[in-house]
């Protein structure tokens, strides 16, 4: 039974691991930290998995556990010292339809998002993942109106960071 549970879990996580990678991407600055946070989220997901009920989508459930781990539970381990810039690790340069200005703008945008605080990052993350305000409010435990207000503030803040 336990083996079967483990097997199902690993299969699901392997399939949806992109979500965890994306959380790690927003909340860490280098590969070591990325791996460390990925591992902690995996542990938390696995610990919570026996209580996971099929009525929620696995991916939706992962958003919650992933963000909760990143915002609340995770303690940066000592070995994750910032040695490498974020962009040098995960920023992809696509050769097809290469557009220098857009590429440059994206790079600045990713850097700007990295300057936001943890809660603002969570809002941006859910927004980028195309979650509606009702889902954002449920994940963070704030009202929908406040989620909207905060999102607008985050957008303004990003603009200020980009055009000081």
């Amino acid at each position: 039974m336990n083996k079967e549970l483990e097997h199902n879990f690993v299969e699901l996580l392997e399939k949806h691991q992109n979500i965890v990678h994306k959380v790690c991407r927003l909340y860490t600055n280098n590969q070591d930290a990325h791996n460390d946070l990925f591992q902690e989220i995996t542990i938390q997901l696995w610990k919570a998995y026996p209580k996971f009920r099929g009525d929620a989508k696995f991916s939706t459930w992962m958003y919650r556990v992933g963000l909760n781990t990143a915002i609340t539970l995770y303690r940066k381990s000592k070995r994750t010292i910032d040695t490498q810039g974020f962009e040098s690790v995960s920023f992809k340069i696509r050769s097809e339809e290469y557009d220098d200005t857009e590429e440059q703008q994206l790079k600045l945008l990713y850097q700007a998002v990295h300057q936001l605080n943890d809660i603002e990052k969570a809002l941006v993350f859910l927004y980028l993942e195309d979650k509606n305000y009702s889902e954002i409010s449920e994940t963070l435990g704030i009202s929908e109106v406040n989620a909207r207000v905060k999102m607008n503030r985050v957008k303004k803040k990003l603009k200020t960071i980009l055009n000081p």
Partner: protein
Amino acid sequence: MDELDLLKKDWQKGPVKEESLLSSSEIYPMMHKKSSSIVKTLFYISVAELIFWILVNSIPYFSSAEYRADLEAMYGNNGILLGVTIFTYIVIITFIYLLYTSYKSISVTDNAKKLMESILRTRKIVRYYVIYNLVMAFLSMVFGLYYTIYENPEVSAQFAEFTDKQLMAALAVMVLGTLMFVFVFWIFYRIIYGILLRRLNRNYKELKKLEV
């Protein structure tokens, strides 16, 4: 186009590099690694605190017959000591029960705010336990000093010889010593919990700020 929409377009394409994707054989060992979450650390700290205070309260009593005799003499034989002991154990059991239920209520699948609140509530219970112990330590020091000064013939004889000035100085030293003791503990806890929960507190404040 809105900056965030540009980012969203890129994000939706999937910003994760192919080579960072993990295979199931890499995920298996990860699941069973030890968690380094703050809940786990908080749990260890609170267990350590429980044990520490239980030891502080019981070791002198059980290891030194003299201390035990002193204590018994101090409380008299009217069952006060028994009452205090029973009270202490009730408090400890209550704290263990509260901590246990509080830890059980921490769920990573709650929303972010609720999760933070459960953790902060647990931390509060540990704090009350520490405050309780500091108050008890303070009271027993005061009580112990009072007893020593007035009931111990040698010490009271010495105190009787003191001038008013010397008496004031002795009292001042005692009060300062007690305050120092409480202060050192207080700083110690501020540092431990301050470091551990700094990020959580900051994020919780940020979420609370939205409601104002």
